[in-house]
């Protein structure tokens, strides 16, 4: 049978449910974040691990110009190499029926039998897979097929080795190599409408592309010990393959898809720690206030219990169990919220990451931890209250409650300011400034809430600014066409002559090793022609940076990574030809927010590889009515291997951002708002309990519920204003912290807190606080004030 004290506990809990609800809301969100983000993270990790295992995700990729299979066979026998596949990989332009725009694709060779058992094996989603009937069969990536409405049996055309080849689609598939479908660094969001992967039969690909007994990509799986410390092996691979034109050695941790997925998993883990910590701290503080008040209000009860003969320990446990009950209730609500959240997140992930089976497991240990954490914080929250209970001597508990501290507050010395307000504002001010702990906690809670909202909105805004900067301020071309091989200036004139081309500018991307001291990066230097207009590198303040005839222009992040600045010289070694190392000075710094940039004059760059003037892509301005004609011509260009359309890339980024941003930013604002809302409500309800007699007296005197509630609302407004003041520096710090976390080689945020964003933040936070006031008013209205005046101490 439930002991009497436990029954009291349950009824007390039930009686203070209103006040508790605001705290439970905050605890619930904290635990919800812990359970939800944790569950989503674990499911991602598990799905990723089982996918990688089942389809043999590689540890190393080596991109080459062309290497004979005899060499790769030798490497296969190294003790560190567990498995090795030699593939042919080409970026190509795809011609899909009923689509004028040429699409980009990556063609990957794969054995016609056992393609699911190779490294980075493919998992067939639809279709029957390769048959014996014909050579020119292709399995295409599922997302691309879906976005394009392509089905098994459909045909598509590719320019391969200057010949137009036709493929029959025999299946759609996914692969761990493209779980996050991006081409490589520089791409940050999948664009399945315009980019797909094409798996074709190995032998056919070798024949058509001129790679008989040769490959241009080596993928390896390493033995576990080598995988743990791959640096030496990578260096050796590069040394051995050097004569065959190593373009890039990519260890798993730098592989684009893996990196995005891992970053997401890491990010989830961090958020799953930070967010609950913030919410539960606020909840514990709020609970502290509530429990202290409860202990003070139940003085007589505590005294009686002690007088009857209950020991300090029994009474203490009784009040501690209040915290336990709150903790359990918060954990239950939080678990439900969390699992719902995790489910929604996994659903969202499905549109970004393609896995063969997206698990949704519930992890009991996470739920148990959630319970432990919730109860732990709640017990922490009862601490001051329980301490007060313990300190209370039974005899003292029986005496009258000491009267509330009176007297003037400091603010009253400022006579002219004080006289601006009526007595109800005076009451509010006095109450705010006399309850130091309570006020400090409320201000803190409000500031935390506003800071989180500010952070969410500023990040969203910064992302949009980033897109505008990259795609409007820096890039101006309508269309970029990439070429397989370097071409002479003649290619530019050919491009100029294409239908609808208003302006064509050459671009030479030269992969180089850039080194300074011990730091180095392998990346493409973009060579721009003198008088270029279609790419204008800038500084964050908007100023255009000119590309001088000599030297290199680095983006800020690249300069930081190599530890250089204007005036320093770096070692430049082109990853082709004779690979002669030169020294080049840094002559200017630009700002870029996606990837890393390095610019040089086209002529200067050409001389680095001993050419006079070469290019490998053209940037075009297009006369809109002739776009279709231009597209048709590009589909026939023998040397074209890729196409990007600025407006589409930008639109894709914006659409994805808005779609996912709306959900996550909305949730974040809502959760953060719950803190202001809960804290304001908790405050006001405690205040109502404390000032029952005062409020009742005012009601007897003839004040309306609205006028009485006005005192409490004023109090919350004073706290809100102070909270806004604190939120300034706090939010700024938080944004700095988060933007540093986002400051990676892949992308960065141009952080600027615009006045309108700050204003919107304050407005939103105010709305949350005001909505709490509606409940306060309702509470005052239904208050039985006739009983209130009769209340005895």
């Amino acid at each position: 049978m439930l002991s009497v004290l436990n029954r009291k506990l349950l009824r007390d809990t039930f009686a203070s449910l209103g006040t508790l609800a605001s705290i439970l809301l905050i605890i619930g969100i904290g635990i919800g974040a812990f359970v939800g983000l944790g569950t989503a993270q674990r499911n991602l990790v598990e799905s990723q691990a089982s996918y990688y295992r089942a389809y043999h995700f590689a540890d190393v990729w080596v991109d080459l110009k062309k290497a004979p299979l005899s060499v790769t066979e030798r490497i296969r026998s190294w003790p560190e190499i567990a498995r090795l596949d030699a593939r042919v990989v080409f970026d190509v332009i795809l011609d899909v029926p009923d689509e004028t725009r040429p699409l980009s694709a990556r063609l990957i060779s794969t054995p016609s039998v056992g393609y699911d058992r190779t490294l980075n094996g493919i998992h067939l989603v639809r279709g029957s897979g390769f048959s014996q009937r014909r050579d020119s069969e292709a399995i295409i990536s599922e997302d691309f097929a879906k976005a394009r409405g392509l089905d098994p049996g459909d045909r598509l055309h590719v320019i391969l080795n200057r010949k137009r080849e036709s493929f029959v689609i025999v299946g759609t598939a996914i692969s761990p190599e493209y779980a996050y479908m991006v081409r490589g660094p520089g791409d940050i969001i999948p664009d399945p409408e315009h980019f797909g992967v094409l798996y074709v039969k190995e032998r056919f690909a070798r024949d058509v592309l001129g790679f008989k007994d040769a490959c241009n990509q080596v993928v390896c799986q390493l033995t576990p010990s080598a995988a743990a410390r791959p640096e030496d092996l990578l260096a050796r691979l590069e040394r051995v393959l050097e004569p065959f034109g190593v373009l890039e050695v990519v260890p798993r941790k730098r592989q684009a898809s893996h990196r995005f997925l891992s970053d997401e998993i890491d990010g989830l883990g961090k958020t799953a720690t930070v967010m609950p910590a913030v919410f539960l701290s606020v909840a514990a503080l709020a609970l502290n206030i509530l429990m202290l008040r409860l202990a003070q209000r139940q003085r007589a009860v505590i005294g009686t219990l002690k007088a009857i003969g209950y020991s300090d320990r029994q009474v203490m446990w009784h009040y501690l169990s209040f915290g336990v009950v709150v903790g359990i209730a918060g954990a239950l609500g939080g678990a439900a919220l969390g699992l719902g959240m995790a489910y929604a997140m996994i659903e969202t992930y499905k549109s970004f990451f393609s896995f063969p089976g997206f698990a949704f497991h519930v992890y009991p240990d996470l739920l148990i931890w959630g319970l432990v954490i919730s109860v732990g914080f709640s017990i922490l929250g009862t601490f001051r209250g329980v301490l007060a209970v313990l300190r209370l001597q039974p005899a003292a508990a029986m005496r009258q409650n000491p009267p509330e501290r009176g007297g003037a507050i400091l603010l009253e010395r400022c006579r002219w300011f004080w006289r601006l307000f009526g007595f109800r504002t005076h009451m509010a001010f006095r109450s705010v400034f006399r309850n130091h702990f309570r006020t400090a906690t409320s201000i803190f809670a409000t500031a935390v809430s506003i800071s989180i909202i500010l952070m969410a909105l500023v990040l969203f805004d910064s992302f949009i600014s980033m897109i505008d900067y990259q795609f409007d301020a820096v890039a101006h071309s309508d269309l970029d066409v990439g070429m397989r091989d370097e071409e002479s200036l003649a290619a530019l004139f050919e491009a100029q002559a294409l239908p609808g081309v208003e302006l064509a500018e050459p671009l030479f991307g030269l992969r180089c090793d850039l080194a300074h001291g011990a730091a180095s990066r392998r990346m493409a230097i973009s060579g721009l022609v003198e008088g270029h207009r279609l790419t204008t590198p800038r500084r964050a303040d908007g100023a255009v940076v000119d590309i001088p005839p000599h030297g290199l222009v680095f983006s800020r992040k690249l300069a930081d990574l190599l530890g250089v600045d204007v005036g320093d010289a770096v070692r430049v070694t082109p990853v082709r030809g004779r690979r002669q190392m030169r020294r080049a000075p840094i002559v200017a710094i630009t700002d870029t927010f996606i990837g890393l940039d390095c610019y040089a004059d086209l002529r200067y760059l050409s001389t680095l590889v001993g050419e006079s003037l070469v290019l490998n892509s053209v940037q075009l301005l297009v006369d809109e009515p002739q776009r279709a004609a231009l597209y048709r011509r590009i589909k026939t260009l023998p040397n074209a291997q890729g196409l990007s359309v600025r407006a589409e890339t930008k639109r894709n980024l914006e659409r994805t951002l808005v779609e996912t941003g709306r959900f996550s930013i909305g949730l974040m604002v809502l959760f953060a708002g719950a803190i202001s809302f809960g804290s304001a409500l908790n405050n006001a309800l405690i205040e109502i309990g404390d000032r029952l007699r005062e409020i009742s007296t005012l009601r007897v005197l003839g004040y309306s519920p609205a006028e009485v509630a006005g005192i409490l609302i004023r109090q919350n407004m004073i706290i809100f204003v102070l909270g806004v003041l604190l939120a300034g520096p706090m939010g700024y710090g938080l944004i700095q912290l988060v933007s540093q976390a986002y400051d990676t080689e892949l992308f960065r945020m141009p952080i600027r807190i615009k006045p309108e964003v700050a204003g919107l933040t304050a407005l939103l936070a105010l709305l949350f606080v005001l909505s709490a006031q509606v409940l306060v008013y309702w509470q005052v209205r239904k208050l039985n004030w006739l009983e209130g005046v009769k209340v005895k101490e």
Partner: protein
Amino acid sequence: MDRGVQIRVERAARIFRMGDIEVPALVDADLDIRFGEFITILGPSGSGKSTLLNLIGGMDRPTSGHVWHLEEDLAALSDRELTRYRRAHVGFIFQFYNLIPTLTAYENVQAATELAERPLDPGEALELVGLAERCDHFPAQLSGGEQQRVSIARALAKRPTLLLADEPTGALDLPTARTVLALLQALNRERGLSILLITHNPAIASIADRVVRIVSGRVTESLENESPLAANEVTW
């Protein structure tokens, strides 16, 4: 009738410290309570009555002097031992009843019986105070007199040897007060319970075996009452 001494207060003093000021609430008080005695302590408000009661009840310790319960000096006991003493020997009745508002009458009594070693059944205790049929009511649903009777039932149910009542009728009207006092008198006479009752009302004092007067923290007189008044004859 020669009865043994249950409680002996010996030169007990209690000084409260309020900031820099020392307020002596009780000065060198001496008092013996014998088994089965009904004593009233009479004095104006602020005279130190409640302080004396708290010392005897083990709710507080004297600043100096002793409070003996049989062979045990309450002044020397730890908090834990005082709790054990209260639990085993003392029943309290308060002016404002001090019932736990979220528990029913029955449960309020149960709150005490759960602690005792061989308590009365809570229903039996409520029957003794004539409230058997109201046991499911919450304090807010009971009249003042009824609440005080629940509080007496609660004190009684532990089978204490000493009942301490602090102005038990202070918040009650005369007829209700009479029933409460009659109940206490009956408990004393029929069950041999020692009772120490605090009041500022001389009329109530007349029902006791002995009347102790306190003025300004000092015990000024202790008078045996040869013919105690029956509780239903009390009037004011």
